[in-house]
């Protein structure tokens, strides 16, 4: 099927409708600004679905995410949702992880099975994230209702609204006495080992380099549940950190021949306005509700990848 008003993008050798790219970018921009994620769980499958090879989909998506994150992070910074110290520490771990992920892609490319393996991994990861977040967020919302009833509506304020079901795990992680230990006053974390932050960001970077995007779908939950960062700050800081790590990831993928910058530039035109709208919307929702609304998104990516994998057809 020929895409509507298809244009030829010579670098990746694909024919794609620019309208499709702008609309996809716009929708992903709203999601990114709202949830603090790059939207790669939709952007990657969306590029794959119109015939782009996974290695190009991953690299091009990263490039588009650099641009989108600049817009959304600036907006979040104005809202006071960015912890600069945390973001800079995380960038180091993410860059290391992103390079490992990009090397894995190169290995699979040489083996000739990059499309199949990345499809399967993305289906497993995206489904697991959705299932986990629906479980955790509903549990937190239920527990908040119960607490509110007990205290007769006495709990008020942003902090009380931003609980998670993993408070025990968070406290245990913050008690690890591994030098160097830092405090994150902006995020309300008195002390945490730099190594915990580096490991969390390394895992995020690994997924970023391997599946594309900023991997906010895995880093954002880990920041909330493991590091104990309030959801609004996790969203803003994640976006700030993505600018640094996705820039590195884009460069790394570009020199491996996996980036079609023209596709990324066109997608980003839609994402720029979508990101502004998404960031403004975060002011109207509490933390657990943002997480609960996030749940269906990775499943959209799963549906697209499964369809492409089973039928072998483009959308």
């Amino acid at each position, binding site marked *: 099927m020929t895409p509507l008003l298809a*244009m030829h*993008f*010579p*670098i990746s050798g694909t024919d794609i409708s*620019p309208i499709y790219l*702008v609309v996809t970018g716009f929708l992903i921009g709203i999601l990114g600004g709202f949830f603090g994620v790059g939207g790669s769980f939709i952007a990657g499958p969306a590029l794959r679905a119109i015939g782009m090879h996974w290695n190009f989909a991953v690299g091009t998506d990263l*490039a*588009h995410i*650099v*641009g*989108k994150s*600049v*817009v959304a992070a*600036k907006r979040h910074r104005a809202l006071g949702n960015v912890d600069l110290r945390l973001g800079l520490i995380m960038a180091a771990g993410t860059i290391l992880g992103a390079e490992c992920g990009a090397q894995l892609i190169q290995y699979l490319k040489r083996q000739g099975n990059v499309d199949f393996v990345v499809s399967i991994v993305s289906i497993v990861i995206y489904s697991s994230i959705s299932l986990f977040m629906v479980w955790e967020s509903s549990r937190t919302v239920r527990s908040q209702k119960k607490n509110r009833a007990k205290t007769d509506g006495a709990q008020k304020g942003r902090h009380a609204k931003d609980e998670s079901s993993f408070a025990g795990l968070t406290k245990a992680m913050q008690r690890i006495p591994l030098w160097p230990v830092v405090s994150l006053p902006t995020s309300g974390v008195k002390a945490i080992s730099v190594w915990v932050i580096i490991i969390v960001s390394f895992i995020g970077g690994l997924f970023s380099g391997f599946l594309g995007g900023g991997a906010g779908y895995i880093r954002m939950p880990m920041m909330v549940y493991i590091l104990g960062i309030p959801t609004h700050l996790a969203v803003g800081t994640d976006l700030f950190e993505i600018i640094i790590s996705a*820039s590195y990831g*884009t*460069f790394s993928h*570009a*020199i491996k*021949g996996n*980036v079609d*910058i*023209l596709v*990324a*530039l*066109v997608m*980003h*035109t*839609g994402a*720029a*306005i979508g990101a*502004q709208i998404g960031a*403004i919307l975060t002011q109207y929702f509490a933390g657990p509700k943002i997480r609960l609304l996030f749940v269906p998104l990775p499943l959209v990516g799963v549906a697209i990848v499964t369809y492409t994998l089973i039928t072998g057809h483009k959308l």
Partner: protein
Amino acid sequence: MKPETRRTLVSFLIELVVYTIGIVVYFFLVLHFLADWLEHLSKENIKLYAIVAITLILGQAVILEWVTTFLFRLLRGRSE
């Protein structure tokens, strides 16, 4: 529909139309002037292509951030 909601919706639609026109003109120009050069660069000098790619996307991000903020302020008469 409440008058306030209607006002917000109308200003958003105007923003979207103005932005869309600007963007269509812009990206056709970009595609027209840059496509051949970028394709050539990606084949001949991949490291320079990578640097140019990052610069282009960051530059576009800064410009579009400025344009969208300007549009938001102009049409709503206040800073969002």
